[in-house]
């Protein structure tokens, strides 16, 4: 039996080389001076200072957080009713709907984002349909927001739907028996119990939205820069890997902080409920 444990050895080596080492390299580049020779280097905080003293970078970071926040709010507000309806359907309909929502998530995100260009472009269907001939739709913040909601809302719907389906339906009956009306039951029983789904949905929408870079590029037309675009630029166009690594580190830390806060809210919520019970 023990000898099977040796089967893990290749992967231990692989993990160190292909997962741990790349992460350490990002750290290393973020804290060292220009120059890509690992033999000659000096430690520095310059890249971080440069980022946090530059008004433009801070603005872009703020903009990325704001648009990710907006995306998340829209996804919750739209996704919840959709998930609620799916969860209340009969088994057969529910399975079909879940598949219909899941299918787009398996299709290439880039292609799905690209598919909006034709719809949004000048003289396109959307302008004519809503009488917006004079309003530019493509290459605006609204288009970027739309692209993000489009790409990420399935994750929200699926998470909320799962948590709603897991809920014991006898709780609803109990609530009704105890004299609560439908709204009260929803607000005091259904919604609190589905909150864990909402929270994991928020994590699945907010985090990729903050770091996304091809959605603003394709639908924002390069005029709407987000933090992901800055990172892409530093690595692909400018070639300042050290600065790019520092920005990615800043972004990763902010995301971890957000995750931590989201988890805290979740724990707080669970704790409160247990105490009441």
């Amino acid at each position: 039996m023990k000898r099977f444990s040796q089967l893990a050895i290749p992967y231990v080596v692989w993990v160190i080389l292909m997962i741990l080492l790349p992460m350490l390299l990002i750290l290393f580049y973020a804290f060292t001076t220009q120059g890509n020779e690992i033999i000659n280097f000096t430690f520095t905080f310059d890249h971080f200072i440069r980022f946090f003293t530059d008004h433009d970078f801070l603005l872009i970071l703020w903009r990325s957080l704001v648009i990710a926040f907006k995306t998340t709010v829209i996804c919750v507000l739209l996704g919840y009713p959709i998930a609620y309806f799916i969860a209340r359907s009969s088994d057969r309909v529910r399975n079909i709907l879940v598949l219909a929502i899941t299918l787009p998530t398996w299709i290439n995100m880039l292609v799905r984002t690209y598919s909006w260009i034709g719809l949004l472009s000048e003289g396109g269907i959307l302008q004519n349909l809503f009488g917006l001939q004079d309003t530019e739709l493509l290459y605006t913040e609204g288009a970027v927001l739309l692209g993000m909601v489009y790409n990420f809302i399935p994750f929200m719907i699926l998470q909320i739907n799962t948590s709603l389906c897991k809920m014991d339906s006898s709780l609803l009956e109990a609530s009704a028996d105890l004299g609560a009306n439908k709204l009260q039951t929803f607000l005091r029983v259904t919604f609190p119990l589905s909150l864990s789904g909402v929270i994991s949905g928020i994590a699945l929408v907010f985090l990729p939205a903050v770091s996304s870079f091809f959605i603003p590029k394709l639908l924002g037309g390069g005029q709407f820069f987000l933090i992901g675009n800055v990172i892409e630029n530093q690595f692909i166009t400018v070639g300042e890997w050290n600065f790019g690594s520092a920005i990615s580190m800043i972004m990763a830390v902010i995301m971890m902080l957000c995750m931590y806060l989201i988890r805290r809210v979740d724990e707080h919520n669970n704790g409160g409920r247990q105490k009441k019970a």
Partner: protein
Amino acid sequence: MKKEKRIFGKVLMVLSLLFFYVPILYMIVFSFNSGRSLTNFEGFSLRWYEHMLQNRDMMESLYTTITIALLATVVSTILGTISAIGLSKSRKFLQKIILQLNDFPIMNPEIVTAIGFMLLFITFHVEKGYMTMLLAHIAFCTPYVILSVMPKIRSLDPNLADAAMDLGATPWQALIKVLVPQIMPGIVSGALIAFTMSFDDFIISYFVTGGGVKNLSIMVYTMSKRINPSINAISTLVVVLITVVLVIINVVPMIKERREKKHEKIIG
């Protein structure tokens, strides 16, 4: 009241399905447009598909996407399965650390994983191209395979392999003839996740490629800057390919199940 609610729900569902599928259908329809426009449908033609087939870059990117997806799936499935079996028998401490690290590429924002790989290849002067893309794909697919195989192994009787060997099986036979068949569903779903992840990947491929090697996603990204309806054609191809794979995934188990049930009936 109740009826109203139902109607509201139905309208909402129809609208959301339209929201999800109209853009994709629109793109597919316009891939058959005879004109250049993305807004006026001028007539049916296969012009852009011809254009796509004649474009060497596009055909090469199709080849790259498919071969990398297949190779990455095979390697990551084998590596992931073997590693998951090995890890389940390793010391708890090692197992915990490796599984934690294994979660990194899944939890991290993709762009961070991508620049990690890029820095790795740059630092060690590995020339970026097909091989680096393949390596990166194996690296981000394997964690998903492990994640889907691990629970299956945990649900097995830990003495299963011992029992097989007591009955005279060599360790290799115990592994291939006893353990692997038991965890097959986990392996298959891991392989499918790996294939679709690799096939659809853009961000990681974009950062680790070089020397003009492109997959379909990179192709769409670099070409989308100006209007070129053959992107619609190639995108349609991507959608159709992945839908076919998904249909096979969903339909084959159903057919198999039906056949098995039939067998049961015949035998029983």
